[in-house]
């Protein structure tokens, strides 16, 4: 009989109380209480009842599991699956069934803190946005000689620089930021206003989205 590729089947009428470990694939149609740790694929069939942590290469669940699932490749929950426990794998697909527990998939980071490749790919302008105000004066000063309003208060207030809407990319942000200082300057002193609320906005952007999310979250 083959050794490495043998499939183990825990039949519908079988109840295992203890540890199941080893190589090969495992198909659970019956009940397992204890722990399951195999190198191969684990399939918990509809009607299977597993009160146990399960670890394997690929785990497919169509039955009920009370325990954590950890896979080195993937976890898939299909119609009929009922899982109370954590799911951890590089790839997790839940196409049916119900889950209650912590799920970690992909790189396990979820939404990243900081400029992300998808954002950069979709809209380079957006990613460049935080960079521009934070950039060296040369970048901003060059295109914006014509709007001297904020140049005077150039203690380096990025808000001031950004208020000069010269760079195209900064357009949408500057629309927002430009409004703020303008509105405030109408209400009060211009130099004071420039150092007021706008810096709250800009520093978070200046450091990149990372800073923004840290402060806001």
């Amino acid at each position, binding site marked *: 009989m083959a050794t490495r590729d043998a499939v183990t089947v825990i039949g519908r009428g079988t109840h295992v109380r203890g540890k199941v470990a080893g190589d090969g694939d495992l198909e659970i149609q019956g009940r397992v209480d204890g722990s399951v740790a195999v190198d191969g694929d684990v399939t918990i069939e509809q009607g299977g009842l597993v009160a146990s942590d399960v670890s394997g290469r690929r785990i497919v669940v169509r039955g*009920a599991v*009370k325990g954590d699932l950890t896979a080195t490749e993937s976890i898939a929950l299909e119609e009929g699956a009922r899982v109370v426990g*954590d799911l951890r794998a590089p790839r997790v697909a*839940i196409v049916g069934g119900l889950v*209650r527990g912590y799920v970690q998939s*992909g*790189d396990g980071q979820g939404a990243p803190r900081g400029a992300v490749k998808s954002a950069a790919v979709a*809209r380079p302008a957006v990613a460049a946005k935080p960079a521009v105000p934070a950039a060296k004066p040369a970048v901003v000063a060059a295109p914006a000689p014509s709007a001297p309003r904020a140049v005077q208060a150039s203690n380096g207030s990025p808000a001031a620089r950004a208020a000069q809407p010269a760079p195209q990319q900064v357009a949408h942000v500057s629309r927002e930021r430009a409004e703020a200082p303008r509105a405030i300057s109408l209400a009060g002193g211009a130099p004071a206003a420039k150092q007021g609320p706008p810096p709250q906005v800009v520093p978070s952007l200046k450091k990149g989205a990372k800073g923004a*999310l840290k402060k806001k979250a």
Partner: protein
Amino acid sequence: MAQARTKNTVSGDASLIGAGTRVRGRVTGDGDVVIGGHVEGDVVVRGDVTIEDGARCTSNVEGHAVTVAGELAGDVSASGPVVVGATARLRGNVRGAQFSMEDGASFAGRVECEFELPDGLGEDHAAPARRR
């Protein structure tokens, strides 16, 4: 801070926060919301919420059906189904009537669906806490 003034550019009652738009503040309403841009602030609507691929939200999201295909840092509370697409990057806890997730999604958070395990497996186990 600018409240979201969403424009009706999508059919029906849906509002759209386009890809080039950045919102800082709460987004609330009765209809559906489709988010393609950046939102920092909670999104609380009666209708469906869709976070498109390329969108980035730092928001707690409440709605009926919630579909996440972009980036979301925040919790989701849906009275309907929650769908996490293959391009999604989601960090936060999810509560919904149903939950589905496509292969390829990056997700870190708790999922809470209401259901009972079959007899023979007992009640909820509190074990996950120790893992984290």
